[in-house]
Protein backbone atom coordinates (compact mmCIF):
# COMPACT_ATOMS: atom_id res chain seq x y z
CA UNK A 1 0.00 0.00 0.00
CA UNK A 2 1.36 3.40 -1.01
CA UNK A 3 -0.98 5.25 1.32
CA UNK A 4 -2.57 4.19 4.60
CA UNK A 5 -6.20 4.72 5.61
CA UNK A 6 -5.05 7.10 8.33
CA UNK A 7 -3.24 9.25 5.79
CA UNK A 8 -6.36 9.38 3.64
CA UNK A 9 -8.42 10.49 6.64
CA UNK A 10 -5.83 13.13 7.52
CA UNK A 11 -5.68 14.56 3.99
CA UNK A 12 -9.46 14.48 3.67
CA UNK A 13 -9.73 16.35 6.93
CA UNK A 14 -7.28 19.03 5.74
CA UNK A 15 -9.37 19.43 2.58
CA UNK A 16 -12.56 19.55 4.70
CA UNK A 17 -13.95 16.39 3.05
CA UNK A 18 -16.31 14.23 5.00
CA UNK A 19 -15.72 10.61 3.90
CA UNK A 20 -17.60 7.51 4.95
CA UNK A 21 -15.81 4.24 5.71
CA UNK A 22 -16.39 2.75 2.22
CA UNK A 23 -15.03 5.80 0.38
CA UNK A 24 -11.93 5.79 2.56
CA UNK A 25 -11.11 2.23 1.49
CA UNK A 26 -11.93 2.99 -2.12
CA UNK A 27 -9.84 6.18 -2.19
CA UNK A 28 -6.88 4.60 -0.41
CA UNK A 29 -6.76 2.04 -3.20
CA UNK A 30 -7.19 4.59 -5.99
CA UNK A 31 -4.72 7.12 -4.60
CA UNK A 32 -2.28 4.25 -4.07
CA UNK A 33 -2.53 3.36 -7.74
CA UNK A 34 -2.01 6.97 -8.80
CA UNK A 35 1.07 7.23 -6.61
CA UNK A 36 2.45 4.00 -8.03
CA UNK A 37 1.90 5.35 -11.52
CA UNK A 38 3.70 8.56 -10.69
CA UNK A 39 6.56 6.44 -9.36
CA UNK A 40 7.20 5.41 -12.94
CA UNK A 41 9.04 8.72 -13.23
CA UNK A 42 11.63 7.44 -10.78
CA UNK A 43 12.82 5.06 -13.45
CA UNK A 44 13.98 7.95 -15.62
CA UNK A 45 17.69 8.69 -15.33
CA UNK A 46 17.85 12.29 -14.07
CA UNK A 47 21.58 12.36 -13.41
CA UNK A 48 22.81 15.91 -14.01
CA UNK A 49 19.35 17.36 -14.65
CA UNK A 50 18.53 20.28 -12.33
CA UNK A 51 15.21 20.09 -10.49
CA UNK A 52 12.46 22.36 -11.72
CA UNK A 53 8.93 23.32 -10.75
CA UNK A 54 7.94 24.80 -14.08
CA UNK A 55 7.30 23.40 -17.49
CA UNK A 56 8.05 26.62 -19.39
CA UNK A 57 11.38 28.35 -19.68
CA UNK A 58 10.43 31.85 -18.67
CA UNK A 59 11.33 34.04 -15.71
CA UNK A 60 10.18 37.33 -14.26
CA UNK A 61 6.71 38.40 -15.29
CA UNK A 62 6.02 41.75 -13.61
CA UNK A 63 3.34 44.42 -13.34
CA UNK A 64 4.11 48.06 -12.65
CA UNK A 65 2.75 49.47 -9.41
CA UNK A 66 -0.17 51.42 -10.88
CA UNK A 67 -3.72 51.24 -9.62
CA UNK A 68 -6.39 49.68 -11.78
CA UNK A 69 -10.07 50.00 -11.21
CA UNK A 70 -11.41 47.38 -8.83
CA UNK A 71 -14.48 45.29 -9.37
CA UNK A 72 -17.85 46.83 -8.70
CA UNK A 73 -18.78 45.71 -5.20
CA UNK A 74 -22.15 44.29 -6.18
CA UNK A 75 -20.36 42.13 -8.71
CA UNK A 76 -17.76 41.07 -6.15
CA UNK A 77 -20.52 39.98 -3.81
CA UNK A 78 -22.79 38.54 -6.50
CA UNK A 79 -21.98 34.89 -5.75
CA UNK A 80 -21.93 35.23 -1.97
CA UNK A 81 -24.56 33.00 -0.33
CA UNK A 82 -24.90 35.66 2.37
CA UNK A 83 -23.87 39.29 2.46
CA UNK A 84 -24.47 42.29 4.70
CA UNK A 85 -23.37 45.93 4.52
CA UNK A 86 -20.96 45.18 1.70
CA UNK A 87 -19.39 42.25 3.54
CA UNK A 88 -19.34 38.55 2.85
CA UNK A 89 -21.06 36.81 5.75
CA UNK A 90 -19.77 33.49 7.11
CA UNK A 91 -20.57 31.39 10.17
CA UNK A 92 -18.79 32.83 13.18
CA UNK A 93 -15.13 31.85 13.39
CA UNK A 94 -12.81 32.79 16.15
CA UNK A 95 -9.35 31.27 15.82
CA UNK A 96 -10.70 27.90 14.87
Amino acid at each position, binding site marked *: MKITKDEVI*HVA*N*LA*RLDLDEDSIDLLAGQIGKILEYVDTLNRVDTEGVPST*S*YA*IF*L*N*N*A*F*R*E*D*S*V*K*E*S*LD*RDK*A*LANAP*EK*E*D*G*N*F*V*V*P*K*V*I*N*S
Partner: protein
Amino acid sequence: MEFESVIGLEIHAQLKTKTKIFCGCSTKFGAPPNTHTCPVCLGMPGVLPVLNKKVVEYSLRMALATNCKINRQSRFARKNYFYPDLPKGYQISQYELPIAENGHVDIEINSHKKRIGITRIHMEEDAGKLTHNPDRPLSMVDFNRTGVPLIEIVSEPDLRSPEEAGAYLRQLRSIVRYLSICDGNMEEGSFRCDANVSIRPIGSETFGTRAELKNLNSFKHVEKALQYEITRQKEILSDGGEVIQETRLWSPDKNRTTSMRSKEEAHDYRYFPDPDLLPLVIDDTWINNVKKSLPELPDERKIRFINKFFLSSNDAEALTSSRELAEYFEECVKQFPNPKQVCNWVMGELLGLLNAEEKTINESPVSTGDLAGLLKLIDKGVISGKIAKTVFEEMAKTGRAPEKIVKEKQLVQVTDVSAIEEVVSKILSNNPKEVEAYKNGKTKLMGFFVGQVMKETRGKANPKIVNEVLKKRLIN
Protein backbone atom coordinates in the same frame (compact mmCIF):
# COMPACT_ATOMS: atom_id res chain seq x y z
CA MET B 1 17.63 25.99 38.64
CA GLU B 2 18.54 29.14 36.71
CA PHE B 3 16.89 29.48 33.32
CA GLU B 4 17.54 31.66 30.30
CA SER B 5 14.92 32.55 27.72
CA VAL B 6 15.37 31.97 24.00
CA ILE B 7 13.30 34.19 21.73
CA GLY B 8 12.91 34.49 17.98
CA LEU B 9 10.61 36.97 16.27
CA GLU B 10 8.61 36.75 13.07
CA ILE B 11 7.79 40.21 11.84
CA HIS B 12 5.28 41.02 9.14
CA ALA B 13 5.72 44.41 7.50
CA GLN B 14 3.09 45.72 5.11
CA LEU B 15 4.81 47.28 2.12
CA LYS B 16 3.79 50.80 1.11
CA THR B 17 3.08 50.04 -2.52
CA LYS B 18 0.15 51.68 -4.26
CA THR B 19 -1.27 48.36 -5.44
CA LYS B 20 -1.55 44.81 -4.19
CA ILE B 21 1.15 42.21 -4.74
CA PHE B 22 -0.54 40.29 -7.57
CA CYS B 23 -3.23 42.64 -8.94
CA GLY B 24 -3.87 46.33 -9.57
CA CYS B 25 -6.29 46.89 -6.67
CA SER B 26 -5.47 49.81 -4.41
CA THR B 27 -3.88 49.17 -1.00
CA LYS B 28 -5.32 52.34 0.52
CA PHE B 29 -6.44 51.83 4.10
CA GLY B 30 -9.97 52.61 5.29
CA ALA B 31 -12.02 52.13 2.11
CA PRO B 32 -15.57 50.74 2.47
CA PRO B 33 -15.51 46.91 2.70
CA ASN B 34 -14.81 44.94 -0.48
CA THR B 35 -14.39 47.97 -2.72
CA HIS B 36 -10.70 47.18 -3.39
CA THR B 37 -11.19 43.72 -4.80
CA CYS B 38 -11.04 42.06 -8.18
CA PRO B 39 -11.23 38.50 -9.55
CA VAL B 40 -7.52 37.96 -8.75
CA CYS B 41 -7.59 38.89 -5.07
CA LEU B 42 -11.02 37.34 -4.60
CA GLY B 43 -9.55 34.05 -5.76
CA MET B 44 -11.92 33.48 -8.67
CA PRO B 45 -11.11 30.43 -10.78
CA GLY B 46 -9.02 30.95 -13.88
CA VAL B 47 -7.34 34.23 -12.96
CA LEU B 48 -3.61 34.86 -13.25
CA PRO B 49 -1.67 36.67 -10.52
CA VAL B 50 1.18 38.89 -11.80
CA LEU B 51 3.91 40.06 -9.45
CA ASN B 52 4.18 43.78 -8.60
CA LYS B 53 7.76 44.79 -9.41
CA LYS B 54 7.84 47.37 -6.64
CA VAL B 55 7.28 44.62 -4.07
CA VAL B 56 10.50 42.97 -5.21
CA GLU B 57 12.35 46.28 -5.11
CA TYR B 58 11.15 47.05 -1.57
CA SER B 59 12.03 43.54 -0.42
CA LEU B 60 15.51 43.96 -1.90
CA ARG B 61 15.93 47.22 0.01
CA MET B 62 15.14 45.43 3.27
CA ALA B 63 17.37 42.49 2.38
CA LEU B 64 20.33 44.76 1.66
CA ALA B 65 19.71 46.93 4.72
CA THR B 66 19.80 43.84 6.93
CA ASN B 67 22.92 42.34 5.33
CA CYS B 68 21.12 39.37 3.82
CA LYS B 69 22.30 37.14 1.03
CA ILE B 70 19.95 37.59 -1.90
CA ASN B 71 18.83 34.49 -3.73
CA ARG B 72 19.41 35.05 -7.46
CA GLN B 73 16.53 32.74 -8.09
CA SER B 74 13.54 32.60 -5.80
CA ARG B 75 9.99 31.39 -6.17
CA PHE B 76 6.49 31.57 -4.77
CA ALA B 77 4.65 28.74 -3.07
CA ARG B 78 1.11 28.03 -2.01
CA LYS B 79 0.50 27.65 1.69
CA ASN B 80 -2.72 25.71 1.99
CA TYR B 81 -5.18 26.19 4.83
CA PHE B 82 -8.81 27.05 5.29
CA TYR B 83 -9.87 30.21 6.98
CA PRO B 84 -12.56 32.64 5.83
CA ASP B 85 -10.10 35.55 5.49
CA LEU B 86 -8.34 33.62 2.72
CA PRO B 87 -10.59 33.35 -0.35
CA LYS B 88 -8.40 31.01 -2.41
CA GLY B 89 -7.91 28.38 0.29
CA TYR B 90 -4.18 29.10 0.10
CA GLN B 91 -1.89 32.02 0.71
CA ILE B 92 0.75 32.82 -1.88
CA SER B 93 3.99 32.99 0.05
CA GLN B 94 7.58 31.85 -0.34
CA TYR B 95 8.84 28.65 1.21
CA GLU B 96 11.92 27.10 -0.34
CA LEU B 97 14.04 29.79 -1.98
CA PRO B 98 12.81 32.96 -0.28
CA ILE B 99 14.10 36.23 -1.71
CA ALA B 100 16.77 36.64 0.97
CA GLU B 101 18.49 34.70 3.77
CA ASN B 102 21.26 34.84 6.37
CA GLY B 103 21.35 38.48 7.36
CA HIS B 104 21.79 40.33 10.64
CA VAL B 105 21.15 43.59 12.45
CA ASP B 106 22.91 45.01 15.50
CA ILE B 107 21.05 46.12 18.59
CA GLU B 108 22.34 47.99 21.60
CA ILE B 109 21.17 47.60 25.18
CA ASN B 110 22.81 49.56 28.00
CA SER B 111 25.76 50.39 25.72
CA HIS B 112 26.22 46.69 25.02
CA LYS B 113 26.14 45.76 21.34
CA LYS B 114 24.68 42.50 20.14
CA ARG B 115 24.28 41.00 16.68
CA ILE B 116 20.93 39.35 15.92
CA GLY B 117 20.77 36.93 13.02
CA ILE B 118 18.06 37.07 10.39
CA THR B 119 17.14 33.65 9.07
CA ARG B 120 15.13 34.75 6.07
CA ILE B 121 13.00 37.42 4.45
CA HIS B 122 10.18 36.35 2.20
CA MET B 123 7.35 38.01 0.29
CA GLU B 124 3.73 37.05 0.70
CA GLU B 125 0.18 38.34 0.45
CA ASP B 126 -1.85 39.59 3.39
CA ALA B 127 -5.21 38.03 4.30
CA GLY B 128 -8.58 39.75 4.60
CA LYS B 129 -10.18 41.23 7.67
CA LEU B 130 -12.74 39.41 9.79
CA THR B 131 -15.17 41.17 12.09
CA HIS B 132 -16.99 38.94 14.53
CA ASN B 133 -20.55 39.88 15.34
CA PRO B 134 -20.92 40.08 19.12
CA ASP B 135 -24.63 39.18 19.14
CA ARG B 136 -25.18 36.89 16.21
CA PRO B 137 -23.30 33.70 15.26
CA LEU B 138 -21.67 35.23 12.20
CA SER B 139 -18.52 36.95 11.01
CA MET B 140 -18.19 39.64 8.33
CA VAL B 141 -15.43 39.31 5.74
CA ASP B 142 -13.78 42.27 4.03
CA PHE B 143 -11.23 41.35 1.33
CA ASN B 144 -9.76 44.84 0.83
CA ARG B 145 -6.58 43.79 2.65
CA THR B 146 -6.35 40.47 0.82
CA GLY B 147 -3.30 40.60 -1.43
CA VAL B 148 -1.67 43.63 0.20
CA PRO B 149 2.07 42.89 0.02
CA LEU B 150 3.92 41.78 3.13
CA ILE B 151 7.46 40.84 3.88
CA GLU B 152 8.03 38.41 6.70
CA ILE B 153 11.33 38.80 8.50
CA VAL B 154 12.28 35.79 10.59
CA SER B 155 15.00 36.20 13.19
CA GLU B 156 17.32 33.53 14.54
CA PRO B 157 16.55 32.49 18.13
CA ASP B 158 19.28 34.92 19.24
CA LEU B 159 17.24 37.08 21.60
CA ARG B 160 17.67 36.33 25.31
CA SER B 161 15.25 38.69 27.03
CA PRO B 162 12.06 40.68 26.40
CA GLU B 163 14.23 43.84 26.40
CA GLU B 164 16.40 42.48 23.60
CA ALA B 165 13.29 41.48 21.67
CA GLY B 166 11.94 45.02 22.13
CA ALA B 167 15.22 46.58 20.99
CA TYR B 168 15.38 44.31 17.92
CA LEU B 169 11.78 45.12 17.02
CA ARG B 170 12.42 48.86 17.36
CA GLN B 171 15.56 48.56 15.27
CA LEU B 172 13.71 46.79 12.45
CA ARG B 173 10.86 49.26 12.59
CA SER B 174 13.30 52.10 12.36
CA ILE B 175 14.96 50.46 9.32
CA VAL B 176 11.71 49.87 7.39
CA ARG B 177 10.75 53.48 8.02
CA TYR B 178 14.14 54.80 6.91
CA LEU B 179 13.78 52.73 3.76
CA SER B 180 10.26 54.17 3.20
CA ILE B 181 8.92 50.70 2.52
CA CYS B 182 6.50 50.38 5.46
CA ASP B 183 4.97 52.91 7.84
CA GLY B 184 5.71 50.70 10.84
CA ASN B 185 2.46 51.27 12.68
CA MET B 186 1.93 48.40 15.11
CA GLU B 187 -1.42 49.63 16.41
CA GLU B 188 -2.88 49.82 12.91
CA GLY B 189 -1.35 46.50 11.95
CA SER B 190 1.05 47.57 9.23
CA PHE B 191 3.90 46.17 11.35
CA ARG B 192 3.10 42.96 13.25
CA CYS B 193 5.02 40.57 15.37
CA ASP B 194 4.74 36.95 16.48
CA ALA B 195 7.23 35.53 18.95
CA ASN B 196 8.63 32.06 19.51
CA VAL B 197 9.75 31.68 23.07
CA SER B 198 11.22 28.86 25.10
CA ILE B 199 13.42 28.57 28.16
CA ARG B 200 16.34 26.31 29.02
CA PRO B 201 18.72 25.84 31.92
CA ILE B 202 21.63 28.28 31.66
CA GLY B 203 24.55 26.57 29.96
CA SER B 204 22.34 24.14 28.06
CA GLU B 205 22.93 23.97 24.32
CA THR B 206 19.61 22.43 23.32
CA PHE B 207 16.42 24.44 23.02
CA GLY B 208 13.41 23.88 25.22
CA THR B 209 9.91 23.35 23.83
CA ARG B 210 8.66 26.64 22.45
CA ALA B 211 5.34 28.43 22.44
CA GLU B 212 4.34 30.76 19.64
CA LEU B 213 2.78 34.02 20.83
CA LYS B 214 0.35 35.94 18.67
CA ASN B 215 -1.56 39.22 18.88
CA LEU B 216 1.40 41.29 20.04
CA ASN B 217 0.21 44.52 18.52
CA SER B 218 2.26 47.14 20.33
CA PHE B 219 5.82 47.43 21.61
CA LYS B 220 4.53 47.37 25.16
CA HIS B 221 2.55 44.19 24.55
CA VAL B 222 5.50 42.38 23.01
CA GLU B 223 7.67 42.85 26.08
CA LYS B 224 4.85 42.21 28.55
CA ALA B 225 3.63 39.09 26.77
CA LEU B 226 7.15 37.67 26.58
CA GLN B 227 7.73 38.40 30.25
CA TYR B 228 4.48 36.68 31.16
CA GLU B 229 5.23 33.67 28.98
CA ILE B 230 8.76 33.23 30.34
CA THR B 231 7.46 33.31 33.89
CA ARG B 232 4.71 30.83 32.99
CA GLN B 233 7.19 28.39 31.47
CA LYS B 234 9.59 28.72 34.41
CA GLU B 235 6.79 27.88 36.82
CA ILE B 236 5.81 24.81 34.80
CA LEU B 237 9.37 23.50 34.66
CA SER B 238 10.09 24.29 38.30
CA ASP B 239 7.00 22.28 39.25
CA GLY B 240 8.34 19.33 37.28
CA GLY B 241 5.89 19.83 34.42
CA GLU B 242 6.41 20.02 30.67
CA VAL B 243 5.87 22.92 28.28
CA ILE B 244 3.63 21.99 25.35
CA GLN B 245 4.38 23.25 21.85
CA GLU B 246 1.40 25.40 20.97
CA THR B 247 0.19 28.75 19.77
CA ARG B 248 -0.83 31.15 22.52
CA LEU B 249 -2.76 34.34 22.26
CA TRP B 250 -1.85 37.43 24.27
CA SER B 251 -4.84 39.12 25.93
CA PRO B 252 -3.76 42.65 26.77
CA ASP B 253 -6.77 43.35 28.99
CA LYS B 254 -6.14 40.22 31.07
CA ASN B 255 -2.34 40.55 30.92
CA ARG B 256 -1.80 36.90 30.11
CA THR B 257 -1.41 34.41 27.28
CA THR B 258 -3.97 31.69 26.66
CA SER B 259 -3.77 28.55 24.58
CA MET B 260 -5.12 28.49 21.02
CA ARG B 261 -5.03 24.72 20.67
CA SER B 262 -7.50 24.56 17.81
CA LYS B 263 -4.89 25.79 15.38
CA GLU B 264 -2.51 22.83 15.90
CA GLU B 265 -3.84 20.73 13.11
CA ALA B 266 -3.72 23.47 10.51
CA HIS B 267 0.08 23.37 10.64
CA ASP B 268 0.14 20.87 7.81
CA TYR B 269 0.31 23.51 5.09
CA ARG B 270 1.29 21.24 2.17
CA TYR B 271 3.40 23.94 0.51
CA PHE B 272 4.10 23.52 -3.17
CA PRO B 273 5.48 25.86 -5.88
CA ASP B 274 2.73 28.07 -7.29
CA PRO B 275 2.37 27.11 -10.95
CA ASP B 276 0.76 30.48 -11.74
CA LEU B 277 3.89 32.47 -10.91
CA LEU B 278 7.16 32.28 -12.75
CA PRO B 279 10.49 31.96 -10.97
CA LEU B 280 11.90 35.30 -9.89
CA VAL B 281 15.42 35.92 -11.12
CA ILE B 282 17.37 38.85 -9.69
CA ASP B 283 20.59 39.91 -11.38
CA ASP B 284 23.55 41.99 -10.18
CA THR B 285 22.41 45.09 -12.04
CA TRP B 286 19.14 45.12 -10.18
CA ILE B 287 20.82 44.52 -6.82
CA ASN B 288 23.37 47.28 -7.49
CA ASN B 289 20.70 49.74 -8.50
CA VAL B 290 18.78 49.12 -5.30
CA LYS B 291 22.01 49.34 -3.30
CA LYS B 292 22.71 52.76 -4.78
CA SER B 293 19.22 53.96 -3.91
CA LEU B 294 19.49 53.05 -0.22
CA PRO B 295 19.38 56.02 2.16
CA GLU B 296 21.70 56.41 5.13
CA LEU B 297 20.46 53.87 7.68
CA PRO B 298 19.83 54.46 11.40
CA ASP B 299 23.10 52.88 12.57
CA GLU B 300 25.24 54.80 10.08
CA ARG B 301 23.45 58.01 10.92
CA LYS B 302 23.87 57.40 14.63
CA ILE B 303 27.62 56.98 14.22
CA ARG B 304 27.79 60.10 12.09
CA PHE B 305 25.84 62.07 14.74
CA ILE B 306 28.26 60.93 17.45
CA ASN B 307 31.34 61.80 15.39
CA LYS B 308 30.18 64.99 13.75
CA PHE B 309 28.03 66.53 16.48
CA PHE B 310 29.75 65.03 19.54
CA LEU B 311 26.47 63.71 20.88
CA SER B 312 26.26 60.92 23.45
CA SER B 313 25.40 57.48 22.16
CA ASN B 314 21.99 57.65 23.87
CA ASP B 315 21.15 61.05 22.39
CA ALA B 316 22.31 60.00 18.94
CA GLU B 317 20.27 56.84 19.12
CA ALA B 318 17.12 58.64 20.21
CA LEU B 319 17.50 61.31 17.51
CA THR B 320 18.11 58.79 14.74
CA SER B 321 15.32 56.40 15.78
CA SER B 322 13.14 58.03 13.17
CA ARG B 323 14.33 59.43 9.88
CA GLU B 324 12.06 62.46 10.16
CA LEU B 325 13.28 63.32 13.65
CA ALA B 326 16.91 62.99 12.55
CA GLU B 327 16.21 65.28 9.59
CA TYR B 328 14.47 67.83 11.81
CA PHE B 329 17.50 67.87 14.10
CA GLU B 330 19.99 68.26 11.27
CA GLU B 331 17.96 71.04 9.70
CA CYS B 332 17.95 72.92 13.03
CA VAL B 333 21.67 72.45 13.49
CA LYS B 334 22.26 73.89 10.02
CA GLN B 335 20.57 77.09 11.16
CA PHE B 336 21.89 77.11 14.70
CA PRO B 337 25.19 75.26 14.83
CA ASN B 338 25.17 74.24 18.46
CA PRO B 339 24.23 70.52 18.25
CA LYS B 340 24.17 69.89 21.97
CA GLN B 341 21.71 72.69 22.63
CA VAL B 342 19.53 71.77 19.66
CA CYS B 343 19.55 68.18 20.92
CA ASN B 344 18.43 69.26 24.40
CA TRP B 345 15.55 71.28 23.03
CA VAL B 346 14.44 68.68 20.50
CA MET B 347 14.58 65.83 23.02
CA GLY B 348 13.14 67.89 25.85
CA GLU B 349 10.63 70.57 24.94
CA LEU B 350 9.80 69.50 21.41
CA LEU B 351 9.32 65.75 21.98
CA GLY B 352 7.50 66.54 25.24
CA LEU B 353 5.09 68.72 23.31
CA LEU B 354 4.60 66.19 20.51
CA ASN B 355 4.02 63.34 22.94
CA ALA B 356 1.51 65.37 24.91
CA GLU B 357 -0.39 66.28 21.76
CA GLU B 358 0.11 62.82 20.21
CA LYS B 359 1.64 64.32 17.11
CA THR B 360 4.43 63.09 14.90
CA ILE B 361 7.47 65.21 14.12
CA ASN B 362 6.01 65.94 10.68
CA GLU B 363 3.03 67.57 12.36
CA SER B 364 5.18 69.68 14.67
CA PRO B 365 3.63 73.12 15.13
CA VAL B 366 7.16 74.48 15.62
CA SER B 367 9.21 74.60 12.43
CA THR B 368 12.96 73.96 12.35
CA GLY B 369 13.50 77.62 11.44
CA ASP B 370 11.50 78.86 14.42
CA LEU B 371 13.20 76.52 16.88
CA ALA B 372 16.60 77.67 15.58
CA GLY B 373 15.34 81.26 15.83
CA LEU B 374 14.42 80.77 19.46
CA LEU B 375 17.82 79.31 20.29
CA LYS B 376 19.49 82.27 18.58
CA LEU B 377 17.51 84.63 20.83
CA ILE B 378 18.85 82.83 23.90
CA ASP B 379 22.35 82.78 22.48
CA LYS B 380 22.34 86.53 21.86
CA GLY B 381 21.05 87.17 25.38
CA VAL B 382 17.78 88.67 24.14
CA ILE B 383 15.83 86.28 26.35
CA SER B 384 16.80 83.97 29.18
CA GLY B 385 16.56 80.19 28.90
CA LYS B 386 13.66 80.29 31.30
CA ILE B 387 11.67 82.83 29.31
CA ALA B 388 12.49 80.83 26.21
CA LYS B 389 10.35 78.01 27.57
CA THR B 390 7.39 80.37 27.84
CA VAL B 391 8.04 81.59 24.31
CA PHE B 392 8.23 77.98 23.13
CA GLU B 393 4.83 77.21 24.63
CA GLU B 394 3.40 80.21 22.82
CA MET B 395 5.03 79.10 19.56
CA ALA B 396 3.50 75.65 19.99
CA LYS B 397 0.08 77.13 20.61
CA THR B 398 0.06 79.74 17.85
CA GLY B 399 2.72 78.57 15.40
CA ARG B 400 4.10 82.13 15.38
CA ALA B 401 7.73 83.16 15.07
CA PRO B 402 9.66 83.54 18.37
CA GLU B 403 10.95 87.04 17.52
CA LYS B 404 7.40 88.32 17.16
CA ILE B 405 6.22 86.71 20.40
CA VAL B 406 9.15 88.15 22.36
CA LYS B 407 8.52 91.61 20.99
CA GLU B 408 4.78 91.59 21.43
CA LYS B 409 4.78 90.17 24.95
CA GLN B 410 7.73 92.36 25.92
CA LEU B 411 9.78 89.42 27.04
CA VAL B 412 13.13 90.92 26.14
CA GLN B 413 15.63 90.19 28.86
CA VAL B 414 16.57 93.05 31.16
CA THR B 415 20.34 93.42 30.98
CA ASP B 416 20.43 97.03 32.08
CA VAL B 417 22.48 96.90 35.30
CA SER B 418 20.99 100.02 36.84
CA ALA B 419 17.43 98.72 36.28
CA ILE B 420 18.37 95.45 37.97
CA GLU B 421 20.10 97.30 40.80
CA GLU B 422 16.90 99.18 41.43
CA VAL B 423 14.91 95.98 41.79
CA VAL B 424 17.60 94.44 43.99
CA SER B 425 17.48 97.44 46.33
CA LYS B 426 13.76 97.05 46.64
CA ILE B 427 13.96 93.33 47.39
CA LEU B 428 16.71 93.79 49.96
CA SER B 429 14.88 96.53 51.84
CA ASN B 430 11.68 94.46 51.83
CA ASN B 431 13.46 91.48 53.38
CA PRO B 432 15.72 92.79 56.15
CA LYS B 433 15.59 89.55 58.18
CA GLU B 434 16.85 87.47 55.30
CA VAL B 435 19.58 90.00 54.58
CA GLU B 436 20.67 89.78 58.22
CA ALA B 437 20.66 85.98 58.11
CA TYR B 438 22.66 85.98 54.89
CA LYS B 439 25.28 88.23 56.37
CA ASN B 440 25.47 85.86 59.34
CA GLY B 441 26.53 83.07 57.02
CA LYS B 442 23.27 81.62 55.72
CA THR B 443 24.49 81.95 52.13
CA LYS B 444 21.91 79.47 50.89
CA LEU B 445 19.52 82.44 50.93
CA MET B 446 21.09 83.65 47.68
CA GLY B 447 18.60 81.46 45.85
CA PHE B 448 15.75 83.15 47.68
CA PHE B 449 16.92 86.66 46.68
CA VAL B 450 17.44 85.62 43.04
CA GLY B 451 13.96 84.14 43.03
CA GLN B 452 12.45 87.34 44.40
CA VAL B 453 14.18 89.48 41.79
CA MET B 454 13.08 87.18 39.00
CA LYS B 455 9.55 87.26 40.33
CA GLU B 456 9.55 91.02 40.46
CA THR B 457 10.81 91.24 36.86
CA ARG B 458 8.52 88.46 35.69
CA GLY B 459 11.51 86.33 34.81
CA LYS B 460 12.99 88.85 32.45
CA ALA B 461 16.09 89.88 34.41
CA ASN B 462 19.33 88.42 33.15
CA PRO B 463 20.16 85.85 35.86
CA LYS B 464 23.89 86.34 35.59
CA ILE B 465 23.65 90.08 36.21
CA VAL B 466 21.14 89.52 39.03
CA ASN B 467 23.63 87.23 40.74
CA GLU B 468 26.49 89.68 40.36
CA VAL B 469 24.50 92.64 41.63
CA LEU B 470 23.14 90.67 44.58
CA LYS B 471 26.58 89.42 45.60
CA LYS B 472 28.06 92.88 45.43
CA ARG B 473 25.25 94.39 47.49
CA LEU B 474 25.07 91.64 50.11
CA ILE B 475 28.80 91.65 50.77
CA ASN B 476 28.84 95.35 51.46
